[in-house]
Every structure is written in C-alpha cells, then in structure tokens.
C-alpha cells in the first residue's frame, strides 16, 4: 500500500466531479494502488448520494418515462459475472504492450507504451505529453534512468508526481509505486531515481502546456537544469 497519498481536498473534488481531467487522471491512477483512498472516496461519494436525495426535484417532461422504457433492451442488462471477464481480458491485452499500468492511464495512452514519443529533457530524463488541452493543468509521463539525479530545483507552479514503476528519493523520503509527491513553489528538491530500474512517473503540473516553447517550459522543473 502507498505511503504517500493524494491530499484529502483532491479526493473530495474527485468524488464531486470537479477535478480537471489531468488531476482526475492522477487521482484515479493513485486509487488503483490505494485501497485506503478508495475507501475515502467512497465516503465522499456517499455524501454526494445524500445530497442527491435532498435536492429539490424538477419534474421531467411528460413522456420521459415512456421514452426511457422504450429504450430498454433485455439483453443490455449485463450480469455481474458476464461483465467482469471481458473487462479483465481487455486490460490484459492492453497491458501486454503497456507493461502493467493503471487502467485509467492505459485508457488515455490509447496506443500503449509503444506509441509514446519521448522528448529528452536532460541526461537520463525523458518526458512525453499525455493531456495538453486542459486550460490549467497538463499531464505527462516522465522516465528517469536508474540512479539519475535531477539537480536541485524549485517549481513555478504546483506539481503532483505519481510513481508508476521503480522509485525515487528526495528530502521527503522514498517514493515507490503508487506514492504521490506534492511539490509546490516554495519547495526545493532534488529527486534521485532508484538504482536498478528506470523510474516511470505520471506528472501533473499546474500550467497549460499550450504555452510551450521556452516560456511554457518554465513550468517544467527541468528547465532550470
């Protein structure tokens, strides 16, 4: 089980549905690793369920129920047993080329790991954009070769890093698969990837990738290398 978790306010926003896609992707991926946070999200969703019970209803159009009933097909009702194997099989197939990544991430990557195009950021450090069309946040994959150290740097915006494979250490401790590292503007850190295996991370940064080029790269911690 992960030792470093997603902040509670992000779990609440995930449950209410208010998180932008890149942050939502990181939270959903962390949840794959973390039964404790899944339990918490479940509690917050129960609050959402209660709010739904207490809201003032607004009448539907007169023929709405009739229309809904017309659309029902008996065979569409999935049995619990019936739906599980295809989903699992689908993931097994996808995982074959993406090397076991959380399902929400596999969903975003489409072509799998092979289709990812990496950009070199520094020696032993590569990055690949995943979500670039959000107004505020961007999501990317980052791969750090074993033992590579990223020089001390600060951040121009908040940044969340989820370890997917391998691990790294900084002053805050050691981060392994499923752990989330929060970096803020006032935090200076120098992460070092574990020896042995390349460290693969999902990085969500506060700042649009649209502004890229050199200016946008200010948001990338590695610009300061």
């Amino acid at each position, binding site marked *: 089980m992960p030792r470093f978790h997603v902040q509670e*306010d992000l779990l609440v926003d995930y449950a209410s*549905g208010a998180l932008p896609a890149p942050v939502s992707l990181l939270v959903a991926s962390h949840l794959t690793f973390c039964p404790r946070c899944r339990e918490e999200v*479940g509690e917050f969703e129960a609050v959402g369920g209660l709010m739904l019970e207490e809201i003032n209803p607004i009448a539907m159009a007169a023929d709405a129920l009739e229309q809904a009933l017309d659309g029902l097909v008996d065979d569409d009702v999935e049995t619990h047993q019936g739906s599980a194997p295809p989903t699992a099989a689908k993931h097994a197939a996808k995982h074959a080329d993406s090397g076991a990544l959380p399902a929400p991430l596999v969903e975003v990557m489409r072509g799998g790991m092979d289709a990812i195009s990496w950009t070199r950021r520094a020696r032993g450090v590569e990055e690949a954009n995943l979500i670039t069309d959000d107004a505020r946040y961007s999501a990317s994959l980052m791969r750090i070769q074993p033992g590579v150290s990223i020089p001390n740097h600060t951040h121009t915006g908040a940044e969340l890093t989820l370890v997917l494979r391998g691990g790294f250490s900084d002053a805050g401790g050691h981060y392994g698969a499923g752990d989330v590292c929060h970096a803020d503007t006032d935090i200076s850190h120098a992460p070092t990837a574990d020896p042995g295996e390349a460290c693969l991370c999902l990085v969500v940064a506060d700042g649009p990738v649209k502004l890229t080029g050199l200016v946008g790269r200010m948001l990338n911690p590695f610009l300061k290398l």
Partner: protein
Amino acid sequence: MTLEEMIQAIARDHSRTAFAGLFEHFAPRLKSYVMRLGADERAAEEVVQETMLMVWRKAGAFDPDRAAASTWVFTIARNKRIDRIRREARPEYDPNDPLLVGTAPETADQPLQRRQHGDRLRVAIATLPEEQASLVRLAFFDDLSHREIATDQSIPLGTVKSRIRLALLRLRRDLEDLE
C-alpha cells in the same frame, strides 16, 4: 420495495416495473442536479436518460453492501455529465484492473455497518453548521473545486479546505459516536 431492491430486481428479472420506480424517484432529482451544474433543461433531460439507461445496463454490478442506491446513481450521473462536457471519458479506477491493490477481506458486519452509516450520515448532514453545510453543497452541487469555491466565496483557499475538512470530520465523528 427499497431502491436497492429495485436495482437488484432489474439485474435479476429485467423488471421494468422496478425501473419505472427508480425513474420516478431519481429522474427529477438527477435533472435538478444536472441543471444546478449549469445544463439547460434539454441537455439535463438527456443526461438523465443516459444515466437511467446505465442504471438498467449496469444493475448487475450494483452491490448494496458497498454503496446505497443514491450513491451509486450519483456516481453514474456525475460521470455521464463529465463525459458529455469532455471528449474523453472520465478517468475512473477499474475494479477489475489486474493491477488493483486489494482491500483486506471484510468482516461479516461491515456491510451492515455501512448501510447504517447512510441513515446516520443523513442526520449528521442536517445538523452541520450552515457555513460548513453550504460549502459541502457548493462542492457537490455547483461543480466547484476547493480552489474555485475559494474564489467564488472570496474565502482563502486554506479556509475552504479547513471548513470542508471540519464538516467531513464532523460527519465521520458523528457516525462513530453512534456506533
């Protein structure tokens, strides 16, 4: 028949009567929820129809030991609404993901406790101080993230976080006290 039993009746018997019962109960609430989040009436009715169709299709995946009917329907509507706004499906962890790190097996009385929680949570929410209750409502019904609530209400982000946190802690404590 409870709402939970109606969902189970769809899974078991493809019961249209049960579906109609769920529709009568949930559709007007869902419509209100989606409209409150900014959809116009027509769009809201469409989200409701899509949500109820998912209730029909996914009824077999509903587990009354894990969530109340209202919680389950809420999560479906939340996702349908987001899918409509974004081109991409909302990122969701997949309970069938081979990578999923499991939870410890439940003890026999945990499901019952969870159901009792639902009733108590209702009472607890009704007794929250208004400043906390209104922020929880903003979070769930106005689609505002903590950060946006802070801007909207002109309250510092730290204060929003701590008030919602207090509200949720209080809800949890009330539940534990009642056990």
